[in-house]
């Protein structure tokens, strides 16, 4: 029987999700459940002079109104497993105590019988604010005399750097060509369609907390909750069944979650908080807000001699987690898939009185934005086609293994192959001819690419292992238990495929249980494009021993050597004599109910747990995004014409799942390049707190996305590579380059994002072109 891995196995999640019978956190109902609503700051920065909750408390149906004094002192310990307790962290109070630090900062939490009543009461909480001058613009915050946090004068969260920039000065001084660009990327954010949400139920007699959460990592929610409340970890149970998108946003609990957990321990019934969309766009966090000055030194033939990046990133007021550790990746990955003999970077992370930075699908994406825009700009300035410049500098198979100038070790990647495949799918020469003809008619067509390498399944201490338990029930049916955290990642389907293959079971005999910390092995959850390789490792590790036991039992009963048996379709049969066989059900029956018939030394039952430990620091994936567009210089509208992704994620577990991840990530990047902007005015008021203002791409803006695959196995389990994040890394830079290419005849260079119609019209006008 052909393996299931590699096939378009229909998703096991679909029947419940298509019929409205999934279980998202807002679908959880508990006896006597209460509902929370936050009172949030309407100003960007102010001292809290007084809070009067008396009128709110008088309202029928209101159980409690919590302010900082009621909750914040309940925090026992507060840190994320990824960072550990010793890492320098940024402040994270449950409720604002002395000062509010962004519009949306939670000041009080109302608890009432339903959300309607809780919102009524929230309006009755009176807060006196003494306004302070806010630090809205992170880019000037380092020079500000005002501090977002008094603990951090000058607003610097932290700084990381490679070798000193001065060391590169001679290369730049002597180079025939030096090109520099400054790119300013706007704030945009993950925006899962399901907002944040949590239900917490405390049992005082038992000293147990049960939590239902919209999360990418139920086990991290459990660890965090246990530390926060000072409750033993095994007395906390976290359950998630369906989570409506995460994209990094739901990888860690945030301040509102802390409030709900702390308050629940004081309440007689479960407490539910479901964020509304306005709260989400105000307070769930921002990402991508950063800028950098990127420089390139080239020789006469367009070969890169050196590259540098001076990068500054907005942390907002309360980042989740501290951005310093994860922000390092921007500088480390800046060299990308190019032969760049030397270079360096500096990254600074800066507080502002805005929504805090959160993880977002490819959190280091700015490395690609800075590098790929720099390459296109360099090509145009030295009079070379950007395609040709890349061909001269891109890493090829014969260059591997290698390390970039920051010491990142590359192998098992195919950037050049994906680049050429994407160009061939386009028919690049034909496009250039079409572009030339269009220009002659006063139409502006452009081509942009982005090629990147991406570390997946990174083996941090938190992420570097993953467990699985496989239980073959007495009937021969199989349950596989993994930590879960699937938020649309199709992890149930892929785990079932992998397990069926690993055990030789028919796929309809395999089911999976995920997302409940009381049942599943510990695991870090979904994030860092880790689930494919890491669960494949966990299942292989666990299934191997179980398979041996199955075969040993069958061989003993059939009186044949184990080597003569094959295990497929839930049946162990003698090679060449298929009549002589036992079904998995018969083998399970022996294992559970006929201990006398067991071979010596083989334990009874058919259950095993295993834990995979990745020996790989990371598993590299890579891709090229390519798009063509037409820009209307009068309206500033950008129409995407063709969109091509050529990627190498190794052998695919399920092509439909892989394609879905690439499509989704790509469209998030399209939104980031052209539409989405979590903007603030100069007083720090958020300007995009509804979907009328925060513009997400719809089916009419998105082109058909064409995919090409190059398949190079990784050294990891099954040769698989992670694929969750890449689409969101490569797309925005490719689009920016396409628009820049379209407008190049006008002398336009792009330095500020997003490329809204208004900003494009402004660029065209600044270039001095008269529009009709």
């Amino acid at each position, binding site marked *: 029987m052909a393996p299931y891995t590699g096939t378009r196995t229909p998703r096991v999640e*679909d029947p419940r999700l298509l019929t409205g019978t999934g*279980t998202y956190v807002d679908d959880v109902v508990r006896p006597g459940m209460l509902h929370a609503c936050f009172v949030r700051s309407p100003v960007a920065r102010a001292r809290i002079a007084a809070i009067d909750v008396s009128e709110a408390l008088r309202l029928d149906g209101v159980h409690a109104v919590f302010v900082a004094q009621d909750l914040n002192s309940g925090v026992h310990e507060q840190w994320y497993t990824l960072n550990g307790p010793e890492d320098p962290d940024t402040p994270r109070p449950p409720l604002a105590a002395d000062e509010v630090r962004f519009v949306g900062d939670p000041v009080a939490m109302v608890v009432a019988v339903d959300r309607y009543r809780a919102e009524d009461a929230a309006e009755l909480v009176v807060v006196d604010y003494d306004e302070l001058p806010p630090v809205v613009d992170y880019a000037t915050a380092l020079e500000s005399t005002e501090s977002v946090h008094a603990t951090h004068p000058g607003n610097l969260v932290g700084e990381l750097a490679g070798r000193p920039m001065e060391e590169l000065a001679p290369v730049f001084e002597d180079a025939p060509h030096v090109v520099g660009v400054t790119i300013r990327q706007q704030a945009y954010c993950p925006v899962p*369609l399901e907002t944040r949400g949590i239900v917490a139920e405390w049992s005082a007699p038992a000293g147990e907390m049960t939590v239902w959460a919209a999360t990418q990592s139920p086990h991290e929610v459990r660890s965090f909750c246990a530390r926060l409340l000072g409750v033993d970890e095994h007395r906390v149970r976290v359950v998630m069944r*369906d989570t409506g998108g995460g994209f990094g946003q739901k990888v860690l609990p945030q301040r509102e979650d802390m409030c709900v957990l702390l308050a629940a321990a004081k309440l007689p019934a479960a407490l539910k908080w479901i964020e509304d*969309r306005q709260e989400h766009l105000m307070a769930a966090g921002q990402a991508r807000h950063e800028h950098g000055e990127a420089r390139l030194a080239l020789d006469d033939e367009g070969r890169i001699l050196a590259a540098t990046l001076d990068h500054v990133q907005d942390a907002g007021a309360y980042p989740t987690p501290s951005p310093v550790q994860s922000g390092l990746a921007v500088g480390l990955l800046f060299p990308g898939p190019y032969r760049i003999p030397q270079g360096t970077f500096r990254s600074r992370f800066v507080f502002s009185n805005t929504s805090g930075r959160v993880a977002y699908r490819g959190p280091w994406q700015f490395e690609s934005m800075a590098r790929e825009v720099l390459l296109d700009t360099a090509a145009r300035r030295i009079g070379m086609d950007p395609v040709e410049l890349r061909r001269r500098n891109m890493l090829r198979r014969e260059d591997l293994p290698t390390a970039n100038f920051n010491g990142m070790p590359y192998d098992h990647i195919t950037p050049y192959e994906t680049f050429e495949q994407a160009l061939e799918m386009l028919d690049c020469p034909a496009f250039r001819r079409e572009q030339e003809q269009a220009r002659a008619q006063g139409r502006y067509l452009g081509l942009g690419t982005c090629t990147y390498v991406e570390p997946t399944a990174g083996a941090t201490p938190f992420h570097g292992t993953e467990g699985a338990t496989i239980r073959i029930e007495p009937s021969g049916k199989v349950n596989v238990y993994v930590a879960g955290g699937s938020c649309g990642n199709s992890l149930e389907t892929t785990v079932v495929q992998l397990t069926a293959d690993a055990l030789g079971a028919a796929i309809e005999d395999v089911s999976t249980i995920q997302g409940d910390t009381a049942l599943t092995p510990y695991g870090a959850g979904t994030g860092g494009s880790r689930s494919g390789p890491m669960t494949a490792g966990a299942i292989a590790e666990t299934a191997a021993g179980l398979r041996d036991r199955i075969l040993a039992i069958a061989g003993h009963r059939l009186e044949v050597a184990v080597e003569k048996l094959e295990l497929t379709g839930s049946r162990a049969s003698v090679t060449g004599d298929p009549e002589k066989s036992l079904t998995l059900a018969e083998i399970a029956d022996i294992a559970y109910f006929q201990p006398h018939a067991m071979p010596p030394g083989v334990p009874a039952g058919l259950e095993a747990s295993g834990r995979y430990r990745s020996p790989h620091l990371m598993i590299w994936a890579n891709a090229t995004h390519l798009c063509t567009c037409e820009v209307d210089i009068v309206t500033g509208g950008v129409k995407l014409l063709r969109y091509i992704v050529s990627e190498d994620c190794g052998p695919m577990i399920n092509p439909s799942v892989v394609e879905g991840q690439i499509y989704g990530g790509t469209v998030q990047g399209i939104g980031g390049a052209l539409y989405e902007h979590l903007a603030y005015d100069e007083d720090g008021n958020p300007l995009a707190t509804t*979907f009328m203002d925060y513009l997400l791409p719809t*089916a009419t803006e998105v082109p058909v996305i064409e995919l090409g695959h190059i398949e190079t196995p990784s050294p990891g389990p099954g040769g698989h590579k992670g694929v969750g994040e890449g689409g969101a890394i490569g797309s925005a830079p490719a689009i920016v380059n396409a628009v820049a290419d379209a407008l190049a005849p006008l002398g336009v260079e792009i330095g500020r994002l997003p490329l809204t119609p208004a900003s494009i019209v402004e660029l065209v006008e600044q270039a001095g072109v008269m529009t009709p």
Partner: protein
Amino acid sequence: MADDIDIRIRVNGLPRRATVPPRLTLADFLRVNCGLTGTHLGCEHGVCGACTVLLDREAVRACLVFAVQADGSDVTTVEGIASPDGELSVVQAAFREHHGLQCGFCTPGFVVSVTAFLAENPKPTDEEIRAALSGNLCRCTGYQGIVNAVRAAADREDSV
């Protein structure tokens, strides 16, 4: 506060009677009072389309309709789309076959919207499909599988 109001609504074929506050949205009535949690709330201001239900066979956003406005009406939610024995409708089956869903949160809104759209326009062009889908937001699929699913459902003879 205004007095509660008696309403009668037929939901997925079952008659429901309730006494509700005038400000209760149809979405909350379906989710909380009827326990039909398939209708999802993604924005509560009428943009994302996740809460789309059929009100007298017309697709509406249940977050923008008060339960009292639906008094006397027939409502179909995503729970009422498949056969009683659980067999997926043509639209639902096409979404599954073409990977038209990932996290599934927007899916009920898409399924209901597309069901209404194909009932009204059984043979749409590709452009009409994209225009019809533009009132529903999805963050996972990039719409590729969804567009293909609607095309496939429309191309089936028995789509309606």
